[in-house]
């Protein structure tokens, strides 16, 4: 296979540039602020691990909390940290489609398809397979840009836990617990990012920016996160099937930090449902607690279990947001005692669902 580096010496180089710069430029008008410095097109899982380790080491040296001397003779501890970063990168990021911080690293499941897309004859009609491939490529390009080009709190929120894990805790901490610990914020970021990416009408905008013709949006993966976010937005009065409502969703989801997102959504639901503003704090807390079972856990399960595990997660997610909706409606009706009883019951049911999921799909331990 022709590697990503080789591609840069071909005529496709210009179209690679067009697609990457074009996908980033989708966000120029919105924020004018970015931490994005570049992209890595990785050909192999090992390159993904190296890119991730380089990110972590750069971060250690930048913030000065854990400097690692990589230019001279490191101490045995520093050497072990570099090895740890590589091992953790392999464990957590090798099979990812992409990951991002101030760089986006696209993985081997994306790079060859992207490369093929940039090699299409620009003047010739595309067949259905090419259009399908480009749907995936455009979706991934825009989805990853949403993460880093909007508000940088996404990577900042997750970084401390990744660093801690690399430093010492991986051996003593189950991967399940680590992934589940990220879930309260991570699902909202993934759900919002992907929903905005595949929003009705947005695929044409992405295709125009990247120069890669495609056939509509691609909506595989992130189903539970999109479902949860769709339910929240509906309660906030935003119709995810209406192209014109995307701007309001974008402002709500990307118009501030990730940590404040539950609060912003709660404020909008309070206004939409005419709920007494005195309940804003508890509504915010309920949003934080109404998270899907972590879909990221699926990634560490054997491949044959991915389909059934995703199906169970989707079922559980639908139930959780049904319960959340009943809670919101009770608040809106002014039956606060009933709402609080529903909240207690929702927490009990969620705990039971988590346990049932882990029994059915026990995650391998790190």
């Amino acid at each position, binding site marked *: 296979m022709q*590697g990503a*580096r080789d591609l840069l010496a071909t005529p496709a180089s210009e179209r690679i540039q067009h697609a990457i710069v074009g996908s980033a430029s989708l966000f120029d008008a919105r924020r004018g602020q970015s931490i994005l410095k570049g992209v890595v097109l990785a050909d192999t899982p090992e390159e993904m691990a190296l890119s991730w380790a380089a990110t972590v*080491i750069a971060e250690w040296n930048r913030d000065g909390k854990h400097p690692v001397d*990589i230019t001279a003779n490191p101490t045995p501890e520093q050497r072990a940290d570099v090895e740890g970063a590589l091992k953790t990168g392999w464990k957590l990021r090798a099979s990812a489609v992409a990951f991002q911080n101030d760089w986006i690293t696209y993985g081997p499941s994306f790079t060859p398809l992207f490369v093929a897309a940039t090699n299409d004859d620009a003047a010739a009609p595309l067949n259905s397979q090419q259009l399908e491939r480009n749907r995936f490529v455009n979706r991934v390009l825009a989805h990853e840009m949403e993460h880093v080009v909007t508000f940088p709190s996404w990577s900042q929120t997750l970084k401390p836990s990744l660093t801690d894990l690399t430093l010492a805790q991986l051996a003593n901490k189950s991967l399940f617990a680590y992934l589940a610990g990220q879930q309260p914020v991570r699902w909202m970021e993934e759900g919002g990012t992907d929903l905005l990416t595949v929003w009705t009408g947005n695929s044409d905008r992405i295709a125009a920016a990247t120069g890669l013709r495609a056939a509509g949006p691609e909506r595989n993966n992130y189903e539970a996160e999109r479902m949860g976010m769709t339910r929240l937005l509906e309660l906030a009065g935003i119709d995810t099937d209406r192209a014109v409502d995307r701007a309001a969703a974008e402002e709500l989801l990307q118009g501030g930090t990730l940590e404040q997102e539950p609060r912003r959504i709660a404020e909008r639901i309070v206004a939409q449902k005419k709920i007494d503003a005195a309940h804003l704090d508890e509504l915010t807390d309920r949003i934080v607690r109404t998270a899907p079972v972590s879909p990221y856990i699926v990634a560490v399960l054997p491949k044959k279990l991915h389909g059934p595990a995703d199906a169970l997660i989707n079922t559980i997610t639908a139930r959780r947001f049904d319960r959340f909706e009943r809670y919101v409606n009770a608040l809106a009706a002014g039956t606060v005692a009933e709402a609080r009883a529903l909240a207690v019951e929702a927490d009990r049911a969620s705990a039971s669902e988590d346990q049932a999921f882990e029994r059915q799909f026990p995650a391998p331990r790190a």
Partner: protein
Amino acid sequence: MRSVVDALMANEWSRSLQVNGVPLAKVAEGGAWLELAGDGPFASRTLAALAGRA
């Protein structure tokens, strides 16, 4: 970020590290590292290859 990889490649101890059994020196040869050069809106940026044969 690429500068970290280049620094790792400049030292014998780190060149000999491995990822999944593959020497780091070989891993670091792969992929394309493309910096979004310039300031201001992305529409006016260009990609600069930090590694590769562009």
